[in-house]
């Protein structure tokens, strides 16, 4: 017990506080040094930040905690940073566990676990007033601790206790498991389930690996952290039969498979790569194939080849790779080839911040090609939605025979959430390849209908075989430079998306339906915006949150919703640009000519904190 001479009893939020207000908690630290054997204090939410180096395995224990939450009817959202180097470098994993709805990764941590002195120094500011900091006594001592803001510092010998427990020449490998055991004890987590998850993970490896991991875990579990009070989460609400925990890239991948995608090609780039790695391994199980291409140009071209061949196909990348695919995407708009393109956005431009989050590819996704090349752009709001957005993308690509871009982002790609297992009996799409004989008079590019191609292998009853083309063409696909034909065909390619915008349901406003301010967001800011709106409403403002899932085309009739609010604010993780508006705000202002639309933007490569949104929106309201 270094750094904490008089061990206090620490209490987090108690169970009787209503859900959704935990942001307003005031930590209470009772003065009495009650015995630690008393029954655990119950709590609804806790944010645990694990800070160390990238090789310490903190991502894996963070993952174990997240999976445990999924199995114990708790909500969870994680956040991680990894250095863009292969090994070494500081890394964090933050887990927000809760018994109610967890919408964001947590503005501040309740508990900080610092593996090193540098971890402590860099992350102590992220710990809330009165929070608990566990640090490894191997790298720092009480003299390094800043006694401020009522933070409780507890020195624990992660390293030496692990070495002692595991023995042999393990050195400090396994100290992450020691920490996991300790966290399990402090938060009264379900030890049996947690050990089960750990065992399954390590069980695939050498037997000694699992044995050592469990020895370290048990040592951490048994370690007496002193008179720190034990906590327990109140039981979570009733959930469906099964819950799963996964990250965004996993759910996007599995969603694509459920949507009937069986072919595609890509080139590795962070943070997209794990999708292509998984597709490469998974698709053969479904009779499909995912190919690593020599470059981004080849990747999109191979994918268009598979799509032309009649399959639902997918390519993907991060922002720089999407730029390289743009010429071919222009072709796909012109030739009306259906395909799905995933862009896991990161900080840009250029190599930029390859392991940070940003939403700066919206304009690129919608307009980033030569010529007038309409396409569909969608963005998932959370990890669970990654699955459903992939399903929707598949349906839209087929129906409208054009490229569909899914804009995910780095935060969504790697964070873990727990949610209800998708009902495959309801959502599964059986892949089809339509090689039916096309009737006489078949037109590949009809002016009065949406293009539906006849892939190779289809007999043409009229004897005339179609050519898919990037030249402007007539209804039969013959090249045509006629001014009238280019006007008509440009309108044909645009009007199918106008039709889609009329078919899209208007988004439902969360919170007040009329009032002071409507906060608009897209993509992974969904949770933080919803939480911010809830907070502003408890403070007496009349606020609504509107999430746009369909970014191009947007649903028809948004202006009607906007009219019911005094202010309209777009919250985006991109730059406010030369004229003071983020990318979505610029689009909305241009399309709706509503000068009330304002922006709250940021470009620090981090997800929005609740207070950043609240402060930004309140500033606009006050102006």
């Amino acid at each position: 017990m270094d750094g904490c001479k008089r061990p206090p009893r620490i209490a987090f939020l108690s169970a009787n506080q209503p859900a959704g207000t935990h942001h307003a908690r005031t930590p209470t630290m009772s003065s009495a040094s009650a015995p630690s054997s008393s029954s655990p204090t119950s709590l609804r939410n806790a944010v645990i930040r694990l800070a160390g180096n990238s090789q310490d395995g903190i991502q894996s224990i963070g993952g174990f905690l997240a999976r445990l939450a999924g199995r114990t009817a708790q909500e969870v959202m994680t956040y991680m940073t990894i250095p863009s180097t292969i090994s070494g470098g500081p890394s964090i994993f933050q887990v927000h566990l809760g018994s109610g709805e967890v919408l964001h990764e947590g503005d501040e941590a309740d508990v900080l676990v610092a593996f090193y002195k540098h971890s402590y120094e860099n992350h102590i500011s992220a710990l809330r007033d009165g929070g608990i900091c566990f640090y490894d006594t191997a790298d720092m001592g009480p003299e390094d601790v800043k006694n401020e803001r009522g933070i409780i510092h507890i020195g624990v010998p992660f390293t030496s206790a692990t070495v002692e427990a595991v023995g042999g020449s393990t050195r400090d490998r396994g100290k992450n498991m020691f920490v996991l055991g300790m966290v399990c004890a402090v938060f009264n987590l379900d030890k049996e389930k947690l050990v089960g998850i750990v065992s399954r993970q390590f069980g695939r490896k050498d037997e000694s690996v699992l044995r050592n991991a469990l020895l370290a875990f048990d040592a951490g579990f048994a370690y007496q952290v002193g008179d720190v009070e034990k906590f327990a989460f109140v039981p979570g609400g009733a959930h469906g039969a099964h819950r799963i925990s996964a990250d965004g890239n996993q759910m996007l991948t599995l969603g694509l498979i459920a949507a009937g995608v069986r072919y595609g090609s890509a080139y590795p780039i962070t943070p997209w790569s794990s999708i292509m790695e998984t597709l490469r391994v998974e698709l053969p199980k479904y009779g499909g194939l995912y190919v690593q291409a020599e470059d981004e140009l080849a990747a999109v071209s191979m994918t268009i080849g598979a799509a032309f061949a009649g399959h639902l196909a997918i390519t993907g990348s991060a922002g720089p790779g999407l730029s390289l695919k743009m010429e071919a995407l222009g072709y796909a708009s012109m030739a009306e080839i259906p395909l799905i393109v995933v862009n896991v956005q990161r900080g840009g431009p250029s190599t930029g911040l390859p392991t940070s989050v940003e939403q700066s590819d919206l304009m690129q996704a919608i307009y980033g090609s030569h010529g007038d090349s309409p396409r569909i752009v969608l963005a998932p709001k959370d990890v669970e939605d990654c699955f459903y957005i992939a399903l929707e993308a598949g349906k839209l690509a087929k129906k409208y025979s054009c490229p569909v871009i899914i804009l995910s982002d780095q935060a969504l790609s790697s964070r873990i959430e727990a949610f209800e297992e998708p009902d495959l009996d309801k959502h599964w799409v059986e892949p089809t390849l339509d090689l039916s004989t096309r009737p006489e008079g078949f037109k590949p590019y009809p002016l009065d209908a949406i293009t539906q191609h006849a892939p190779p292998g289809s007999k043409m009853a009229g004897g005339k075989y179609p050519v898919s083309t990037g030249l402007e063409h007539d209804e039969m696909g013959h090249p045509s430079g006629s001014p009238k034909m280019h006007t008509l065909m440009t309108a044909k390619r645009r009007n199918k998306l106008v039709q889609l915008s009329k078919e899209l349901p208007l988004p439902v406003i969360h919170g007040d339906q009329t009032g002071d301010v409507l906060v608009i967001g897209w993509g992974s800011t969904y949770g933080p915006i919803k939480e911010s709106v809830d907070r502003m409403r408890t403070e007496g403002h009349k606020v609504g949150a509107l999430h746009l899932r369909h970014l191009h085309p947007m649903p028809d009739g948004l202006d009607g919703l906007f009219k019911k609010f005094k202010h309209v604010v777009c919250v985006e993780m991109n730059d406010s640009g030369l004229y003071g508006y983020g990318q979505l705000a610029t689009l909305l202002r241009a399309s709706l000519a509503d000068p009330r639309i304002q922006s709250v933007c940021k470009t620090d490569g981090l997800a929005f904190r609740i207070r950043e949104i609240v402060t930004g929106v309140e500033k606009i309201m006050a102006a």
Partner: protein
Amino acid sequence: MSSALVTPAAPATDKLTKKALTADHPTWCPGCGDFAVLNIFYRVLEKLQYPHENIVCVAGIGCSSRFPYFMNTHGIHFIHGRALPLATGISLSRPDVHVFVFGGDGDGFSIGGNHLNHAARKNIKLTYVIMDNFVYGLTKKQTSPTSPIGFKSKTDPTGSIDRPINPMRQLLASGATFIARTHAAQVKHMEAMFERAILHDGFSVVECLSECVMFYAGAFDDSTPRKGGTYDIIDETQHDVTNDVEAYKMAENLAPGKFGVYYQVNRPTKNALEQKWIDDTQSKLGGVSQKDVLKKRFETMR
């Protein structure tokens, strides 16, 4: 193919004739070597009698890349330089179709040069005909990657100074498993080369010298006997087509050089290797439905 067929490919097809294969009249200039390539391709397809609906012609951008419009088969006219990766996507996902790629020297050796290397090393099952005219014709006379040193073009008015690509050596190094060289004015030889290329199980490339009468007239006179040149055909009793080192030596001087099969070897195609992986993977699943495979995957995430 993983997808359920809506309708299986139709059975008995009518006999494939030149008439059935002919589409728009070519937009090429009178005298262009590409006319002969088109005619010989019709003839070879008539001979092979593949089901009409299973023939796909793919091209990028260039004069010769207009090819798909002149073929009445399924076709795709794609973007500059990317015909090969596009054709790769078709070939790997549709083992039932025959994929033919047409293009010029700019498409193949310049803007699409990297794709040629990779399609070749992966041994993608398709046939690629490069109609090489040593010049950019569609854009009206700029230097091409195969233009000889000294060739005067709009981008090299005093003559090209860059060493041209040696297509045979480049293809040998890239790992293509069938490499041949022919001439649009030598129709019988061209026909033989096309047929052997198409019947080769793997990535087959034929470089076909095809004169651009507008912008590089006389480029191939040195290999055109009626213009005083020599058409020197490789004697395969003397040349071991499986010997790449010998082929490399033979390709030292391509002005005019030799014509015929430089190299042919059997190596498993990516198509076959991937299919084996798919089959092996599926055999381990014990006939579980695709939907159940995904359901089981979700179970592991609980």
